[in-house]
């Protein structure tokens, strides 16, 4: 049958039906028209126009290219939970292969071994990095992973408390998400103080107790400082019978103390710093935990098993935790997660290898130290504000009002964070380090 589609040019370009085929199919189904198949009562039938004009692929690419070009071309010295590293081209090439990109969750493992193995490898790399034996396939982002961690603390039998203690310097967005994630539980959220950018362990110890469900700390912190007494935090949590949840990111894990060694029960954080270009906050939530909590883990898990011929094979496993089986008693409502981003992160980690990751993480420390020092040399600026080691980013105190300085910097083509009336935050990685001299110069003009 000829597929001549000419007369049908007004339909979707992605429906491969010629008019002749459509007619034959309608005939087979026994109706006169497609409309007959819609069993929609007249009173709710939509008869209007949506008012959306179709465009050709060519027109639309030009249009969207012009629209996005309205974004100013700024060099971003921005961080605060969304970090930018260079993603090798080959990650795009490989992850965008249709077999990965256009596949669904692996409900039929016999024909999806490729993605399952890749996710198994992702889990395995997170296990290596965190030292915790169980990592899931992904959460949406660091904020929702923290929310899921809090909910996990609510499900764990050994925990009796209901208060989640978080640092006073927690990213405001993360706090907002956490509040919503605990909204349907008995949990409440309270803060503990910080001391020069790190956890004030003694103050935390005073606050923690029987009523504590979970203590959350970050390394590096949202201000870029590296925690110096994490094991002590872990001990406070242990003493309180609470979970210790550590927030971190996948690059920092390459250099900093492994979470397991400081007593973390759960690790959450940002894994999209590798594999994903800056994407307006699109993320990849890291989630790892102890063996004991295996059946309480939210999200997908890939396990290794065997096929009928006895060969190793991979499959989604422990699905009875999940919503499609357990419904309202599931460990989480999550279904679609960030699997493809996890794939990309795994690819990036595989390209870096152990050496490459240690080097990259070390560069994050060195560049931040160097830039902070140069900015600190300027009159009217103190940088870094905290007397700590820093990872990628640091706080800057300005004599002049910070918003005005940020605005001047933006006019010069630079974006930095305003975090207070006289506080800016600056983040540097290998991607923008080449512009650091220019930033220092722009700062010198602006302050």
């Amino acid at each position, binding site marked *: 049958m000829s597929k001549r589609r000419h007369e049908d040019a007004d339909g*979707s370009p*992605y*429906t491969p*039906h010629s008019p002749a085929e459509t007619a034959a199919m*309608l005939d087979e189904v026994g109706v006169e028209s497609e409309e007959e198949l*819609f*069993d929609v009562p007249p009173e*709710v*039938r*939509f008869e209007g126009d949506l008012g*959306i004009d*179709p465009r050709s*692929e060519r027109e639309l*690419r030009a249009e*969207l290219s012009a629209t996005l070009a309205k*974004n100013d071309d700024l060099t*971003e010295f921005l961080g605060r939970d969304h970090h930018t590293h260079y993603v*090798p081209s080959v990650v795009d090439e490989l992850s965008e*292969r*249709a077999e*990965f*990109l256009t*596949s669904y969750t*692996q409900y039929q493992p*016999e*024909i*999806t*071994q*490729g993605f399952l*193995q890749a996710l198994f490898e992702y889990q*395995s790399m997170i*296990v*290596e*990095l965190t030292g915790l034996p*169980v990592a899931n396939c992904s959460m949406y982002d660091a904020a*929702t992973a923290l929310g899921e961690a809090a909910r996990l603390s609510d499900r764990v039998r050994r925990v009796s408390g209901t208060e989640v203690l978080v640092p006073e310097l927690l990213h405001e967005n993360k706090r907002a998400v956490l509040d919503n994630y605990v909204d349907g539980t008995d949990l409440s959220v309270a803060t503990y103080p910080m001391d020069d950018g790190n956890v004030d362990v003694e103050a935390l110890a005073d606050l923690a107790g029987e009523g504590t469900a979970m203590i959350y700390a970050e390394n590096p912190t949202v201000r870029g400082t*590296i925690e110096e007494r994490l094991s002590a935090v872990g001990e406070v949590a242990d003493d309180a019978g609470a979970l210790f949840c550590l927030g971190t990111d996948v690059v920092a894990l390459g250099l*900093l103390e492994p979470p397991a060694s400081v007593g973390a029960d759960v690790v959450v954080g940002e894994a999209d710093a590798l594999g994903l270009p*800056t*994407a*307006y*906050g699109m*993320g990849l939530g890291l989630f790892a935990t102890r063996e004991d909590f295996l059946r309480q883990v939210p999200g997908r898990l*890939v396990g*290794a*098993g065997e096929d009928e011929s006895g060969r190793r094979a991979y*499959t989604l*496993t*422990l699905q009875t935790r999940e*919503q499609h089986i357990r419904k309202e008693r599931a460990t989480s*409502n999550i*279904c679609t*997660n960030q*699997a493809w981003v996890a794939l990309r992160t795994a*690819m990036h980690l*595989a390209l870096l*290898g*152990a*050496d490459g990751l240690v080097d990259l993480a*070390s560069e994050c420390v060195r560049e931040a130290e160097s830039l902070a020092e140069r900015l600190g040399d300027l009159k009217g600026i103190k940088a870094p504000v905290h007397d700590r080691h820093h990872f990628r980013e640091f706080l800057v105190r300005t004599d002049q009002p910070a918003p005005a300085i940020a605005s001047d910097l933006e006019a010069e083509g630079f974006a930095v964070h305003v975090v207070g009336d006289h506080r800016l935050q600056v983040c540097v990685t290998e991607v923008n380090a080449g512009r650091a001299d220019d930033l220092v110069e722009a700062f010198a003009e602006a302050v």
Partner: protein
Amino acid sequence: RYEPLLSEKDDTSVDVGEAGSPLPDDLTRDDLSLPSLAEPEVARHYTRLSQMNWSVESGPYPLGSCTMKYNPSFAEDVAADPNGAVHPDRSAESLQGTLEVLYGLQDYLARIGGMDAVTLQPPAGAAGEFTGILVAKAYHEANGHDRSEVIVPSSAHGTNFASAAMAGYDVVELPSGDDGRVDLEALEAAVSDDTAALMLTNPNTVGLFERDIADIADIVHDAGGLLYYDGANLNALLGRARPGDMGFDVMHYNVHKTFATPHGGGGPGAGPVGVTEELAPFLPSPRVREDDGHYELFEPAETVGKVHGYQGNWLVLLKAYAYIARLGDEGLEDASAKAVLNANYLAEQIDCEIPYGPFHHEFAATAGDRDAADVAKAMLDHGVHPPTTKWPEFVPEAMLTEPTEAESLDSLEDLAAAFNAAFDADAAELESAPSKTTARRIDQADAARNPRLSWRSIDAEE
């Protein structure tokens, strides 16, 4: 065919101090073990893995309620625009392009759903459900209502139950009527002063339009509840019916299902939520508004706060915008028309019982006295992906089949042939299937009993 694990290719361990760590020893790890391979090796590894994976570009993927349709390639190019690769903390003034796209998508989705306001923040369908229920909860609380229950039909997606529970609601399960639809009497009996909302998928998960939707809306609204629309099956109705017109107060959209964004083997998705004017003040913060050609972010007056660290899955939203704009009114209508035609045509070609009907975009065949999972495995050997099996539960040995509009007549014939061959297979054939796949049948029970979740756990065993 076997591709070794990365860890089987290399087991490098690096001493962090020797590697030149710039930090004091007590702040760092001692060493790091990760496979360390060169780019050519990594490229081959993932190329080979990809070749062991089914996808929409491999062939039919008729997973019912998953709507695996063709993902246009041009949307990937749009999403790769470096001007869209921006940090979320930039000033709105410096991101007018991004905000224009987001605003445009809010508008498109509002039109398509017949809703008044839309948030794009939820990063997946289930996150959209959670958000929608949070919004409903906030609405009730603001109006002084104390309501503790959400009603969910037994045919609903598991996420409906889980999302309602996550927001702190008790879930009341509503059994399906004999015709596969909502039983109005049962609904009347279920609603009460405690009813916060009814969550409904329409067409439902066996492809039936809930013809009594106006009555359903009245019953729920009369009880003071809200009506929630699960957008999973919206692909069946584009331009033909809109949730807002049916009386729904809040809904989520599954952009990978309806708007062809790639599912990426399990995400990222996006689950925008649309609401009526009454609920708009409770939407997550921030939203985008336009003022004389200038776009800005704003916080809705009584916002529930945030459900994602930033603004959701931007790259996915951008692709959804591109798809909608590519098709326009007529393209969207055609997509639904062909999705429904394909499902009905395919049903005609399959030699097995299909309860209920007439259906829209999907149907639940029953494998009868066979195990639906076995039939699915047998289908694998015929070069197609099988349907969703054993769900919804009220259809015995269900094979929930949704070919989508993107399958050609030829492809539907292939799919039907695979179905029929698998149905005709004898018990021995079913049990030994699949035999032509990368892996043979996998013992999932054993994998769950003895979880090995990382290469470390494999090494530990061996």
